[in-house]
């Protein structure tokens, strides 16, 4: 069966594996991940293209808001305290929508982790994406694993200096572009781009670029896997989220062990031989510097590149793919029990194969049922519930808001003719990007008269108040009532604020204080 034995055995060392783990004050041992190719690598390229595309391009999307608001589709306007997202405009007091999105992101992460494991780490985490990007640059300039190891060991020469300078130069360019793209989310992108290059941009913009350039370069280029292992809380949290039905990248030692570097010879001698030929392809491909065959470990970000590496080897050997695969602990345990005769014997791969060498049908594989558990269904239900709630809130939210502050010092004023006056600060929020005229009047306060500073009353007693687009207008309102009309108790009445061009009306119940009422 093992006729073709042209598998290259790599001299790879899993520098971060438990066995090799160093004391903390020892210098980091470098990792030179070998390029993997296969389905997961393809998928990662796709995810990288999408995520980087979103990050770099979104600030440049335009969205017409009718001239009164910025035309940038996604804009966090800190100076004016507005957040624009396509057709949605969020005011600071509506920030709970963002909080809701964060809760959904959290629950989504729980859902994702409990089903497909640390997929966030392996595919979409910015650290993973940018390290991947930096590795592409490194491979393009210095070559693949062996070339890089060789170059690293060489004494400094003109060639090494050139390659290293080129690599760090491109890294820095990417880092600057990364920091540069960030600021475009906070101001009009085309204007800011011009300002940045002409030295006109705000100091904070340059600061942000500098800081993000530094973090991108240091985290993505120099620190790499150390960020995940030592700095990031996710590995700890996500590990706690996993259970025996979550997918993890697993070395299926029930079919791989006993591993043998001379499988053909050993088999000929009648020894038990597993599928693993100990070629170290999985170790060489690992960007975290671990050996997945040691089992599930904290360092593993489940990027699945070892699966691609191993599948390539299995293909060459004419063996079934999946010696390393996404597997749940339940399936693994069941298959392991099969291989070890219920744990009583050492692993014998022949137990998981039929007489003609095919994998036994009794083996368990990924099934849809493992995704549908009470836990995942609950996560999904909560996630959807919050999502529906947010959408409902967004669709029905009001774009006209009113606040009335009663003067408290003094609460009322006696006038020379004996009447009583109360003062109010009326705040009208026009929360759309269009100018509107509001009609203001009061209701249910007998014999009262109302004046608003700077606004003339209409013949019907209402006040027409123009409010600028996306602005709050604050008005000083005085209401006077003859002494004999006040019943010496707190009277409640209503402010009615009506959009003269649209259907929106707001009512605010306020109180009128008199000398007798405030005892």
């Amino acid at each position, binding site marked *: 069966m093992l006729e073709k034995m042209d598998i290259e055995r790599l001299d790879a060392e899993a520098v971060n594996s438990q066995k090799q783990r160093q*004391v*903390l004050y020892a210098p980091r041992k470098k990792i030179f991940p070998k390029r993997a190719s296969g389905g997961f690598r393809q998928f990662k390229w796709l995810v990288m293209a999408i995520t980087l595309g979103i990050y770099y391009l979104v600030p440049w999307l335009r969205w017409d808001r009718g001239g009164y608001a910025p035309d940038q589709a996604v804009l966090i306007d800190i100076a004016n305290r507005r957040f624009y997202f396509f057709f949605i405009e969020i005011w600071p007091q509506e920030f709970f929508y963002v909080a809701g999105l964060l809760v959904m992101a959290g629950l989504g992460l729980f859902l994702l982790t409990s089903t497909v494991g640390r997929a966030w780490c392996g595919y979409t985490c910015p650290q993973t994406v940018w390290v991947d990007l930096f590795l592409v640059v490194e491979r393009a300039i210095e070559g693949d694993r062996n070339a890089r190891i060789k170059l690293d060991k060489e004494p400094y020469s003109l060639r090494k200096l050139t390659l290293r300078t080129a690599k760090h130069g491109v890294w820095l360019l990417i880092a600057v572009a990364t920091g540069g793209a960030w600021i475009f989310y906070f101001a009009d992108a085309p204007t800011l781009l011009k300002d940045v290059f002409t030295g006109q941009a705000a100091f904070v913009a340059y600061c942000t670029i500098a800081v993000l350039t530094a973090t991108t370069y240091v985290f993505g280029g120099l620190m790499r896997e150390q960020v995940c292992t030592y700095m990031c809380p996710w590995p700890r949290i996500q590990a706690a989220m996993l259970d025996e039905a979550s997918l993890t990248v697993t070395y299926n030692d029930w079919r791989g062990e006993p591993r043998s570097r001379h499988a053909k010879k050993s088999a000929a001698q009648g020894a038990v031989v597993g599928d693993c030929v100990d070629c170290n392809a999985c170790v060489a491909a690992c960007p975290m510097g671990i050996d997945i065959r040691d089992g599930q470990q904290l360092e593993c970000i489940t990027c699945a590149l070892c699966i691609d590496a191993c599948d390539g080897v299995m293909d060459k050997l004419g063996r079934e793919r999946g010696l390393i695969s996404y597997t749940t602990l339940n399936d693994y345990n069941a298959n392991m029990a099969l291989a070890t005769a219920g744990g009583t014997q050492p692993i014998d791969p022949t137990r998981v194969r039929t007489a003609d060498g095919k994998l036994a049908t009794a083996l368990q594989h990924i099934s849809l049922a493992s995704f549908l558990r009470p836990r995942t269904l609950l996560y999904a239900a909560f996630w959807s519930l919050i999502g529906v709630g947010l959408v409902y809130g967004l669709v029905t939210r009001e774009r006209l808001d009113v606040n009335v502050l009663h003067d408290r010092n*003094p609460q009322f004023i006696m*006038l020379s003719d004996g009447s009583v006056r109360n003062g109010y600060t009326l705040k009208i929020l026009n929360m759309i990007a269009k100018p509107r005229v509001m009609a203001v009047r009061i209701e249910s306060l007998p014999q009262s008269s109302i004046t608003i500073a*700077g606004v003339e009353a209409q013949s019907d007693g209402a006040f027409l108040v123009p409010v600028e687009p996306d602005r709050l207008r604050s008005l000083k309102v005085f209401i006077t009532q003859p002494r004999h009309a006040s019943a010496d108790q707190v009277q409640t009445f209503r402010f009615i604020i009506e959009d003269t061009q649209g259907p929106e009306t707001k009512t605010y119940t306020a109180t009128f204080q008199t000398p007798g009422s405030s005892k």
Partner: protein
Amino acid sequence: MHDPHKDSHLDELSGVSTTGHEWDGIKELNNPLPRWWVLTFYACIVWALGYTVFYPAWPLLTSATTGVLGYSSRADVRSELAVAEAGRSGYVAAIKAADMQQILADETLRTVATAAGNAAFKVNCIQCHGSGAQGSKGFPNLNDDDWLWGGTPQQILTTITHGVRAPEDADTHVSEMPAFADILKSEQIASVATFVADLPKGANSTETAAPGAEIFAQNCASCHGERGEGNQEMGAPNLADTLSLLADGEEAIAAQIRAPKHGVMPAWGGRLGDVTVKELAAYVYSLGGGK
């Protein structure tokens, strides 16, 4: 860096190398700090030394080194204040150039002047007039519509600028009510006090019938008006309205007639300058009682 695993002085119990120091058989373990920690520490030292060169740091006998950047937090405050001043300068110039009518007619100027006046009021005026400008006994309430010296914006401005009975200002409002204890008999004072106390109730019906009416017409009407409506030219209070500044009730009115008290307000024009008093006038006017 020191590698403990290649050291010959290994402590048998812990497997950690020792420094070679020994006291009574107790050896000092050598657990070096992590490399990143040590590098950060050294970087901090370098940073600190650089900081002392660039910023004020080393104490001298009477002062401290100023640092090559010449930084000081006071200068920071000064420049921030200067920036704020510069930002306001356009409005300040506009308020300086405009009269009260123009300030109140322009929405932006009115808003700015009212806000600035509010700030100045909180510093200079609340000691007597109260934080809500509601006044107290002897100190006028600025919210209502009862004015001693007039409630138009210009009159308010004049009163603030020159004060009331302010000895330091030649143009200040001056008036003095005579002490009637020397002029009228005590019964006469009592009856005129009754008359004055009844004025707000509707003077028309009582004025001729009341015994105090004649005394009032002879002694008081020249300043307070025939029906007690007051005279803002001389700061004579309106006695016919329902508000009183100093005296509520017959007893208090009689006391005021016998030996009057007079309010005094400083002249603010010279202290605060043209612009600030205009802002104060705009604020007081915005309280709602202005004419």
